């Protein structure tokens, strides 16, 4: 038996190739010969190269091509932001497709008179390697990538600076720009590892990307389904980088090669508490929300800053290439809102938005479908940009510090010169909830309860929203308006009856009748016996009202 073993050893040594390269096509799935390591392979053919190449009588296509072109007509990738012009696949890409579009028998080579028999059937089995003739969901190929393209796109490297081994082929991006068909050193036959999207970054230079959390976060998945990274071997957000959201082949979304067609799924598969700490997904299960799941394929990356077709998606407010955890002071955008389009206070498109409210104005400043004012009032204004305009007689201090310098109810650190965010009122309810107006159990996505039912018994809870900044003791202690307690506690009148919380535009109201956010709710407040419904400001903590409310005629009542 010992001799038998020695002889076996000798035999093995004799049959080993004299040089065994550490990485060679021999050890890859592109070895389609009978000795190949993959499942797609020949039943008896021993040669490897001939599946693609032949030393003689090749097709007149470099590199000594041994296969016929598929002759397919391909559906190409398109996108509204694509500057490149992909043509029908040519160059090396069409060579790849002579197996990978699934229309040409794998064993159909010129140097053999009949097809080489394959163990798994003649054609490329369906799966990720079979791209089909619909390349709509694949990264574009066969387009010229020159300095002009880089300049037009603005977020691509100048081609002269693309780091090898990623290369253009005769000036074009081809399959072989990313893939080395002969070696599988980096998995998927990639020239450069996809870890941290090194490969993608060879060409793509996204603005803001360097500091984005999606590029830097070392968060991992907690293992609760769904797997946010089903197609990669990487285990952190930073490692997955582009592939957190994008899939260069067989993307589910086509658009922007996003993993999923349902836009928000690209975000919520991580932002559900399984990877990201905050569970944004849970917010969207609440009754009042920015209804991201209500729209499909309406948002377009190239859409104008002022939204013209009603919709909302995560990326309408967030730029996933830019978002990062960085605090800011009102009204400036914080890290989560970095790099997003906006409409400034003058109605002019800005990119990026500098102030947080500019992002809200994308939709809430006159866009079709933006919600009408919830309360019927004397002065009607549905455009919040008009409501917050700094020249107004009164407004909450979103777009500028407030007009009124005497607000004794303000709880420190709030002062009359403080600026506030829209999200100080409109945000998810609940302690520890993620910031921002994702979803709330309260109407209008308000952070706390804001009762607008007439005859509500006053309590800290009923007007928790207002009392968050305006000291309840001060309000019902009548420190400013002497009749607050009488109205709110005694008459059980909600704050919303007299106050229009956003503001009153200067073209509709004035600094006599509309200071202190006074704009009456017409359902509750009707005309006085004199046919007047009006507030007159008469100086600090002084005024008079003409109206009828809860059956009481103010004709006028002064204080």
């Amino acid at each position: 038996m010992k001799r038998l073993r020695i002889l076996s050893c000798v035999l093995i040594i004799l049959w080993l190739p004299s040089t065994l390269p550490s990485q060679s096509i021999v050890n890859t799935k592109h070895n389609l010969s009978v000795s190949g390591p993959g499942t797609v392979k020949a039943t008896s053919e021993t040669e490897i190269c001939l599946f693609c190449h032949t030393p003689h009588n090749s097709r007149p296509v470099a590199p000594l091509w041994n296969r016929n072109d598929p002759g397919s007509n391909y559906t190409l990738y398109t996108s509204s932001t694509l500057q490149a012009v992909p043509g029908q696949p040519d160059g090396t890409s069409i060579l790849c497709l002579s197996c990978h579009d699934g229309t040409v028998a794998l064993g159909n080579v010129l140097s053999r008179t009949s097809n080489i028999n394959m163990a798994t059937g003649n054609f490329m089995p369906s799966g990720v390697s079979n791209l089909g003739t619909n390349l709509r969901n694949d990264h574009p190929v066969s387009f010229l990538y020159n300095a002009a393209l880089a300049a037009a796109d603005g977020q691509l490297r100048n081609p002269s600076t693309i780091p090898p081994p990623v290369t253009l082929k005769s000036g074009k991006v081809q399959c072989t720009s990313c893939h080395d068909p002969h070696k599988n050193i980096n998995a998927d036959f990639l020239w450069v590892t996809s870890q941290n999207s090194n490969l993608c970054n060879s060409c793509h230079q996204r603005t803001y990307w360097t500091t984005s959390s999606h590029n830097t976060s070392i968060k991992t998945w907690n293992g609760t389904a769904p797997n946010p990274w089903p197609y990669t071997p990487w285990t952190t957000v930073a490692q997955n980088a582009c592939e957190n959201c994008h899939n260069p082949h067989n993307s589910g979304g086509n658009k922007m090669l996003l993993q999923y067609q349902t836009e928000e799924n690209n975000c919520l598969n991580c932002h559900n508490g399984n990877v990201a700490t905050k569970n944004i997904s849970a917010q969207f299960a609440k009754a009042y929300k920015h209804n991201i799941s209500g729209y499909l394929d309406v948002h377009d990356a190239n859409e104008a800053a002022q939204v013209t077709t009603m919709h909302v998606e995560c990326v309408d407010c967030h730029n996933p290439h830019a978002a990062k955890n960085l605090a800011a002071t009102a009204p400036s955008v914080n890290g989560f809102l970095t790099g997003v389009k906006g409409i400034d206070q003058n109605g002019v498109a800005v990119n990026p938005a500098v102030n947080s409210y500019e992002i809200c104005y994308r939709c809430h400043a006159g866009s079709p479908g933006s919600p009408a004012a919830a309360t019927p009032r004397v002065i009607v204004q549905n455009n919040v940009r008009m409501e917050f305009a700094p020249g107004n007689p009164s407004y909450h201090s979103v777009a500028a510090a407030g007009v009124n310098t005497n607000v004794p109810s303000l709880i420190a650190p709030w002062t009359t010169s403080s600026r506030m965010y829209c999200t100080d009122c409109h945000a998810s309810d609940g302690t520890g909830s993620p910031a921002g107006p994702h979803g709330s159990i309260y109407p209008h996505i308000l952070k706390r309860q804001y009762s607008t039912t007439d005859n509500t018994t006053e309590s800290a809870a009923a007007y928790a929203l207002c009392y968050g900044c305006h000291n309840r003791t001060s309000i019902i202690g009548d420190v400013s308006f002497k009749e607050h307690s009488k109205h709110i506690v005694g008459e059980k009148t909600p704050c919303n009856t007299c106050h229009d919380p956003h503001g009153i535009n200067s073209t509709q109201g004035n600094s006599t009748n509309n200071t202190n956010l006074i704009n009456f709710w017409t359902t509750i407040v009707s005309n006085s016996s004199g046919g007047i419904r009006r507030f007159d400001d008469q100086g600090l903590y002084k005024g008079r009202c003409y109206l009828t409310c809860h059956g009481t005629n103010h004709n006028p009542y002064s204080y």
Partner: protein
Amino acid sequence: MKKLRLLLFISIILVSSKFGYSQITGSSHDFSGQSWNTTTEICVVCHTPHNANTSVLNAPLWNHGLSNVASYTMYTSATMNSTAGQPDGSSKLCLSCHDGTVALENFGGVTTGTHLMTGGALMGTDLSNDHPISITYDAALAAADGGLFNPTTTQSGLGGTITNTMLIGGKMQCSSCHDVHNSAGINGLLLKSNSASALCLTCHNK
């Protein structure tokens, strides 16, 4: 012992097929039985012991008429680092039959033959669909290409480096892959077996 004997038997067969003992007789280069070869000899189609054609440097006692083709169309590729010039050296000898311009029986001074090569072995004068030949293959080329082994240090499996056992004067020629005399006994007159594309992968680091 029975198993041992069986294994020995298999090993002899395997080893003999690897280090096969073969010859030109009976190979596709044995033209002794061809109608156009009235000599019934084998070697004479290419070689003569006397009065050989010396116009090709180092030609081995050449006896076949040489082509007058001034310009072959050579293989090109955007990624090729070598420059394929016109065929030279021993490759010109091969082309004296395989370019299809000189009659097969034009040897030993005959110039009036009529049998031109046909079929799969006919390269023609358009070599753009054939592996480039007559290219200098040295360490510099290997370094520049990145997909070639260094011929001066890489063993060919034929008893030495690629340079020493496959190249002629540092150049890749027809005979770098082909053994015209069929000493290896491999289909296609190959220098070594191309099972698992071993011949291709001797030079190509793929």
